[in-house]
């Protein structure tokens, strides 16, 4: 264990200073220090996607990212997606398509889908499948998840 140092994290546009061991996972610091528990632990080794956040716009598995690497970069989490009462199109689509049963994987799924749609506004079925494949849903609502990503593209397209 290294000595705790002060690290600056920018989460959903807000700067935070955390005094912590720089080798701790971003996931743990988000959840335990910043108390933002919307991002979930699923496997701790980047195999399931439950912990996905965006770092400088890129889908990042926060369980396998240490805070040192995330310092000073733009971190986006599920808590930062909605604008007031207005859901982000991807959140709206997941709600409309009822793309979850237990919902534990949903935050990671949504962040993954946001990352996809920000680089490709109209992904095809195959692109959705390949991009979302790193995310596990044990309730296996996969067809509704794929449908939600498609729907989000439509909603987003309509808004743009």
């Amino acid at each position, binding site marked *: *264990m290294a000595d705790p140092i002060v690290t600056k994290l920018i989460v959903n546009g807000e700067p935070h200073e955390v005094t912590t061991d720089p080798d701790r996972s971003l996931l743990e610091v988000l959840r335990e220090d910043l108390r933002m528990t919307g991002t979930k632990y699923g*496997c701790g080794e980047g195999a399931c996607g439950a912990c996905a956040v965006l770092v400088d716009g890129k889908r990042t598995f926060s369980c396998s990212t240490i805070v040192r690497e995330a310092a000073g970069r733009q971190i986006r989490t599920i*808590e930062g997606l909605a604008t007031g009462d207005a*859901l982000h199109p991807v959140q709206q689509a997941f709600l409309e398509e009822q793309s979850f049963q*237990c*919902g534990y994987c*949903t935050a990671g799924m949504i962040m993954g889908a946001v990352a996809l749609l920000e680089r490709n506004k109209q992904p095809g079925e195959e692109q959705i499948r390949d991009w979302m494949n790193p*995310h596990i849903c044990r309730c296996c609502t996969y067809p509704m998840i794929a449908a939600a990503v498609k729907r989000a593209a439509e909603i987003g397209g309509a808004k743009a």
Partner: protein
Amino acid sequence: MSTINTNCRRIDCPEDPDQIIEIVGHDFGLSRRTFVTALGAGILIAVVAKTALGQEQDQPVQGEQRRRVPGGGRRQSPPVPVEARVHLGKDGSITVLAGKVEGGQGARAQLSQAAAEELRVPIERVAMVLADTELAPDDGITAGSRTTPSTVPAVRAACMMARNMLAQHAAAQWKIDAAAVDVRDGAALEKSGDRKLSYADFASSDPQSLKQVAPNDLAVTGVEQWQVLGQSAARPNGRDIVTGKHTYPSDLIRPGMLYGKILRPPSFGAKLSAIDLAPARAIDGVVAVHDGNFVGVAAPSTFLAKGAIKAITESAKWEPTAGHPPSDKLFAHLRENARGGVPRNPRAEHANSAAKTLKATYNVPYVQHAPMEPRAAVAEWQDGKLTVWTATQNPFGVRRELAGAFRIQESNVRVIVPDFGGGFGGKHTGECAVEAARLARAAQKPVALRWTRAEEFTWAYFRPAAVMDVEATLSADGALTSWHFVNINAGRPGIQTPYKVPEPSTPAVDSAPPLRHGSYRALAATANNFARESFMDELAAAAGKDPLDFRLAHLENDRLRAALEAAANAFGWADRKPKQDRANVGFGLACAVEKGSYVAAVAEVEVDRAKNAFHVRRLTQAFECGKITTPRNCRSQVLGSILQALGPTLREQTTFERGRVTNASFYQYEVPRLADVPRIDIHLLDRPDLPPAGAGETPLICIAPAIANAIFDACGQRLRDLPLKLGPLDSAAQSDT
């Protein structure tokens, strides 16, 4: 029953005897040491704990009612006073309580619908409190597809009584006949007048009538009058799911809370002989506990807790236990250890006179539930009273488990189950809650314990492995004349054959399972139906019959016939391409009845000879569960079941050797992903004339046999072990058939 080398014991599940619940035999009672001295160590501890619990049960805690079904049998939700189910607030709030949990199966929406239907209020008016042992009635374990047939009627009955009482109260106030009062949109209305009295007005009159007990067999609103039930309702807290606001058990934070970590033995059953906790205690803020075989720490962060465990790991001296069979010897081990031997076929003499005799053995390995949210609990002690927030399907059972482990009264334990991240039959027990509570007692602070994925893959219980021997005879005209089906280790669910055959023999025997096992969605019905429906295909082939015709010729149950025919028709079974026109493509079907619902599946598989692999191209499933109460969720459950069942059919299996799991990771234990999804067609058969049955389990059980049968059709290989692995194929485009 109990496992080799592990400190577990099976406990009864009074509300559903088919459920397999093995709890970890922790004994953290403060007075334990005297008991151990008096009775000796080891296994007796468990016996003592059981006796202690039993005694406590004989002396009901004041104000608590023991509700048990004498002699077993599936229990209904208990009749309780209306006010135990329905709280009417003077402010107009309506709170409905149930002891069931929400783990993604849809109970929250369904029970809210049931309440709204009978109370005659919009569903948004109902606040549903689930699974808080201090507040909600004991509706038993959430398992066995019992919410729909058992708790939905109980909630409906209580809500209907509350509605009637509102009408009667209004009638008395207005001095008119109750029949002249209607209840609509949350208020009693005078049919020929404009007087109105709301639930809030009723609540303000401090009604005593709500103390009446609501029997479960009341004539509730008929299907033809349903306004809310029978419609699709979104999950009431769905918005909190997509915004990340919902607090799962692993998200809960209490004031001053510490984070726990357990030192796990290096192998199953290893006994701790020595450990030095000093290096852990030297870390600022760390509390370390050593109690028997239990070693754990609590620290201000998970990172520090991990560090503390690391600091003491090397000092731990473990005595491993020997004789643990490896997974590649599993099936031989289960057979050799079958209790009382493998039952013989009582009608073996039939083979002499039969036209044909077939015998085969099918094997199903251990698999894990692997819910996305691993076990998690927050425990907090205050004045000798324990509160635990945890993910379990069995809140009242976990309360008993905690009371037993700490030797305290159940009335001093409160278990609260926030909506959690998946169970699938895998969260019937409370080991994580017990561990968290042990740490919290030492720390004198709330402690959160969240298992890692590797812990979940290793220390959670497994679906029982199964060895199944099947033997049957056919007459010259292709009729089944005898049936002998043995399940070793996995149990009875789904073992009875729905097919017409004289005196079928279907024994199930226990074995000496090397891993801790327990319930899994659909229980042993998945294994038993895989074997039976595969074997029916073998028999059809031996009789020279079409697999569909052969089944229908032996099926008398109209509902099962209807499901099978619906699936076959939707797939286009009768018009399927003749074999010579579809090289390497095969079709297979299967059907089953389980837990009051009926299912049939048809699979299309393509074999790739160059890669020596197969690919599932299409699955068609028909499902009937009586009247459908929640159409969209029913479809979602059927779809999720089909895809979840693909996992153990194609890839999933726990491997182990020398008492260690060797694939405790999502990288090595490969569950279904989006890329695995084939074309799926689901046909829900609604039967408004029949009572609703659950829909979260039965849709799993035909997937494996339908696919195995399609593989046989595609390439002639009969695969009898799950997961299905092709043997070497002739790489020619098409071979013998």
